[in-house]
């Protein structure tokens, strides 16, 4: 629950702890914002300023999500850049990289410019990801250089893997000097077959087509070999299996410059969520076994995986009230990301600061984005977190246009109290 409004002229965040993910230092102190910029607390009138009581809270850099689907253009009934931005802000995010599997896909500079123009005045910064191939069909290389020049921060055919190894190899060579990653949704579609959930004891019980862990791992293995071969930047999205974590670790040890992400739902849920044939738990790659879940969390803990990314994938009610075979893959994730990640990684022994790193400096490094320093004079790009607050995730917490998530009713530890970004703020009731 919470509201998104224009940022007051003066805001004072009192009594909290400031954590800077750039320097990785914490200090006690009030944070003052005047006209959207950080300033010294003495610079604002204590009586006029809006005051946030931040006792017990951590104030830090706004989160960065490098993997979201905002469905504009083409499926504005599921999400738009505007509604997605609201969801992002409510989740503590101030920047979002949007995937190009829209209708039409973002596969040229016009599309990239469209996204940037449409998001100019939004409360979060939107960074477009361009398609690797024209129409995301995997047949012809898209205009990667023009898209980069227009502002694309990465390339991906996400939603569908680049099946053709030669195509991906060419894309990697072609982008080697650009310094931006190619992101390949890693699943061998033939091995995945018609899998709608993780292949395991539960899929066997339910008689549902299973998607084996090796469908992901074998594709990741191929992609990592291509990254090593080309020397280009490859980023592995939504790693979901223990096998995949091992592979990424192995190639990092070999010195290959790869990065990888994990999604909150793979940290906090297992295939048990599909037990009652819940289409909201149908996601690609699927929710896996408890062993996989722990391995992915372990990968974030030891640095094998670089960041958390939501894979926020809105779908309509009608889409998700179909049966499990017909319903599309994906769940929304922005509003629940911090709660879910902080809760499950906290149980694995990670500190709140480490979780913050995985949502700020980690994703920034992957995408080559600069964090905004938490210094007077800089733009206020902040999130206020209550790390000890227990809360139950409900429909009222959802700001997305869609509400497809299996997490409703879950209790999390750690909540976003406020987000300040680009002249707007979200405050939690």
């Amino acid at each position, binding site marked *: 629950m919470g509201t998104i409004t224009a940022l007051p002229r003066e805001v004072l965040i009192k009594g909290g702890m400031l954590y800077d993910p750039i320097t990785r230092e914490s200090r006690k102190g009030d944070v003052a914002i005047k006209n959207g910029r950080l300033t010294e607390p003495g610079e604002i009138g204590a009586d006029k300023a809006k005051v946030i009581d931040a006792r017990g809270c951590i104030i830090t850099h706004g989160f960065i999500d490098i993997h979201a689907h905002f469905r504009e253009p083409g499926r504005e009934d599921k999400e738009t850049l505007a509604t997605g931005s609201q969801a992002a802000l409510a989740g503590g995010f101030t920047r979002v990289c949007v995937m190009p599997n829209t209708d039409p896909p973002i596969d040229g500079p016009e599309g990239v410019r469209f996204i940037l123009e449409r998001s100019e005045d939004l409360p979060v910064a939107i960074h477009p990801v361009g398609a690797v191939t024209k129409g995301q069909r995997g047949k012809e290389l898209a205009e990667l250089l023009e898209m980069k020049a227009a502002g694309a921060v990465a390339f991906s055919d996400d939603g569908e893997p680049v099946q053709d190894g030669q195509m991906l190899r060419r894309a990697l060579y072609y982008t080697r000097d650009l310094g931006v990653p190619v992101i390949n949704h890693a699943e061998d579609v033939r091995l995945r077959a018609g899998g709608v959930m993780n*292949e*395991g*004891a539960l*899929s*066997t*019980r*339910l*008689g*549902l*087509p*299973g998607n084996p862990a090796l469908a992901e791992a074998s594709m990741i293995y191929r992609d990592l070999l291509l990254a090593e071969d080309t020397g280009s930047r490859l980023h592995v999205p939504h790693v979901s299996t223990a096998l995949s974590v091992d592979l990424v670790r192995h190639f990092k040890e070999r010195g290959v410059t790869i990065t990888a992400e994990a999604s909150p739902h793979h940290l906090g849920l297992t295939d048990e969520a599909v037990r*009652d*044939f819940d289409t909201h738990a149908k996601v690609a790659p699927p929710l896996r076994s408890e062993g996989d879940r722990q391995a992915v969390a372990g990968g974030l803990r030891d640095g094998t995986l670089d960041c958390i990314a939501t894979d926020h994938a809105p779908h309509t009610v*009608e889409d998700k*009230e*179909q*049966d*499990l*075979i*017909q319903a599309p893959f994906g769940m929304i994730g922005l509003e629940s990301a911090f709660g879910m990640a902080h809760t499950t990684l906290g149980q694995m022994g990670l500190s709140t600061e480490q979780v913050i790193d995985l949502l700020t400096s980690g994703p920034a490094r992957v995408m080559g984005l600069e964090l905004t320093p938490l210094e007077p004079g800089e733009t206020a790009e902040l999130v206020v977190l209550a790390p000890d607050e227990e809360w139950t995730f409900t429909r009222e917490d959802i700001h997305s246009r869609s509400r497809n998530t299996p997490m409703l009713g879950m209790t999390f530890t750690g909540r976003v109290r406020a987000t300040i970004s680009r002249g707007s703020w979200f405050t939690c009731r």
Partner: protein
Amino acid sequence: MSEPTVSLRHLLGLEGVSAQDIQVLLETGFSFREVLERPIKKVPTLTGISVVNLFFEGSTRTRISFELAEKRLSADVTNFSAGASSLSKGEGLKDTIQNIHAMKMDAVVMRHPVPGSTWQLSQFVDAVVINAGDGTHEHPTQGLLDMMSLQEKFGRLKGLKVGIIGDIAHSRVARSNIFGLITMGAEVTVCGPGHLIPPYIGELGVAVNGDIDEVLTWADAVNVLRIQRERMADGIIPSVREYRSRFGITNERLARHRKEVVILHPGPMNRGVEIDSDVADGDQAVILDQVLNGVAVRMSVLFHLLGPRESEGEPPLHPEEET
């Protein structure tokens, strides 16, 4: 003495159904079996109860068996059959659910190609839901009639050694048999081509053995699954010849085993593929008993899910509304 009752509201699968409930369903099945042997086979148990048979997948046998069971119990029966085409036209589950709701049916017997569809239906309608086969998930009344046939033949299920032969991966019959038989204390071994045995099947409490002759030596009874012709068209099973020689229940193969292994088949049979005609029609087969037991055990299921409520003096499921 009061009638034994079951703790189930719906019959969606045999997974999780208690041994006691299965026992009651089978025992009542045997009582109805006697009714079916009488000259007048109809009882008034479900008079005034409306049942719809909703078949989204062709299955003459199961539909007729349910229909017969319903009519023998004097229920009002409505049939709705729609091929997969109506599903692809977008007749989604939601519409089905709402239609059932609007029609104020007391019970829905549903066959649907998607696993879990009957479970989803049960979440949204007031009616009792009976799963007549949901994709590759479960076919609980088939599991019950198979157990009834075994019980009839051996007088027990506990400790019985049962082989399930064929395409385990795509078989709802296999799953319902496994869940039911394991609950009842039987031992189950699955046997078939390696790629049609799900890799995690052992976690359901069964043994896996790819050698049909070893399974026949071990088993008291084998349940022979139908091999779908599509598996051959897809190139998943190389040939009838190879399947028959490696996994087929042939006369020569049975002759090599001294023991009289009881043969079950859920039908419809591919004679000459998974089972020889001579075997299917021979003394070891109980395939026709299965058909009769199917009607009896479906009567039992309908009786327990729909009948006892009224005999206990509770109000009818849908009292007449004042207008």
